């Protein structure tokens, strides 16, 4: 049986319209993508949808009260809400370097949540 599934790539604003062909005994085939991101996205979206988690966490002693964070890799879509609730419990201390881990192994996904930016502490230079 041959089935065609349609997706819109969320990899970048180009929003490529993807077609994924499912055929018994054959590799999944993706068309319509402008780059590799789209091909991988369609297959993931069909088999196990994932999203990069982006949110903020509270900061102590920072020049700003919140720090933007992201999951280093996409995590299962169905875990996003629970992951955000976990992040609501986190409070980090400035100064913070971009890329530093603010939450390890989110919900046993083996994916860390990291700082999306560097943030200086209060009273340390500007």
């Amino acid at each position: 049986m041959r089935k065609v599934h349609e997706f819109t790539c969320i990899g970048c604003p180009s929003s490529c319209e993807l077609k994924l062909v499912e055929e018994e005994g054959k590799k999944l085939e993706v068309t319509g993508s402008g780059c590799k991101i789209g091909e991988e996205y369609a297959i993931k979206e069909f088999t196990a949808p994932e999203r990069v988690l982006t949110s903020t966490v509270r900061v102590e002693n920072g020049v700003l009260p919140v720090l933007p964070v992201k999951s280093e890799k996409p995590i299962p879509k169905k875990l996003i809400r629970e992951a955000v609730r976990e992040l609501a419990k986190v409070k980090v201390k400035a100064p913070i370097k971009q890329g530093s881990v603010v939450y390890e192994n989110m919900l046993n996904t083996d994916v860390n949540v990291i700082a999306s930016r560097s943030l200086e502490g209060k009273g340390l230079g500007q």
Partner: protein
Amino acid sequence: MDVDTLVIGGGPAGLAAALSANKNGIKNVMLIERGPELGGILPQCIHDGFGTVIFKERLTGPEYAERYVQEIKKTGIDVKLETMVLQIDRDKRVIAVNPADGLLDIQVKTLILAMGCRERTRQQILIPGDRPAGIFTAGVAQRYINIEGIMPGKKIVILGSGDVGLIMARRFSLEGAEVEGVYEIMPVPGGLTRNLVQCLQDYEIPLHLSQTIVDIKGKERVEGVTVAKVDSKMKPIQGTERFVPCDTVIVSVGLIPENELSEMVPLAMDSATGGPIVDEAMETSEAGVFAAGNVVHVHDLVDDVSTEGEVAGKAAARYVMGELKERENPTKVEAGENVRYVVPQVIRKKSFEENVKLFFRVKEVQRNVSVKVFSDGEKIYSRKERVVRPPEMLSVSLPSSVLEKTQVVKVVVEKE
């Protein structure tokens, strides 16, 4: 004070322009930013999807900005934060002010305008009703949540389906607010398809097309809005009104290039883009004055903004060195069938780069069309597109050699 290249605006266009001018040999580059930090709007755009073209990665806004800021720090570029430009003269004298230096009187050889754009507000679309607290543009709400750490409301109605509004629908939902729905007066969504998927569909937030807010109720704070369906002329249809209780209205109804300074020069403007007319080197109608990014036309991709900044910076460096070719009798670029605008609007006969990239937007959604480029009436380029939509910018790259003798180049989107 004398400066070779002055860049106004520290967002993605200005960052790339300043770096590029520096890299192309200008030692004396100054970058002026009115905010307290560099990056423009990027620090508050905490979602990912930035940098897929330039870095081949999906970065968040803050990460994308930080890559450029780190590069800037390695150079001798003079960065002036919390600095407001008050005046630009035609002879390239710039007056600016900040708390550290007081008044700055700067004579520049080249100027790069990178002031970006700003949001259209409630006042500009004339929603009737009360004037309570609780009405924000999407970008302001984004700043409250992602930078200031403040939730602007609990029950949200979003007016307009622009990208920032869609992204904020998701953000509000994730932070525990209830997003009742997104109302779009047009029959088609204003934002990118990918944002309809990952911001609305993922979070089961309804999108109501051909509907708008006809009244806002509330004494101190918003208490609710009346929504109604509209007809093909966008007039509300009587009898379709529905009251929606909410405490917050988010307005996401488009972006406008911020060109008060450009008009002060004054530069020739394009009424279709809302920005200055530029050539393929991002030079405006005034020799030595360049512009790049959302101040020229509102982009979808920050990568394209950075690329424009890079071109402007390089061209400014060439100008300072006296190497930028004169712009005599340039090729005119025209928007044809179903094309709202094309940037650049002019191309010099001896083009700045080997390839000329034309960016354009369509007026209306069309399926199974051809994008064609005509040089003085002769077709020199054609490709098929399955679907074209106004929110999604299109581009065509042409070898500049094919345009050397062209008077008028025209971009057309039409059925076969």
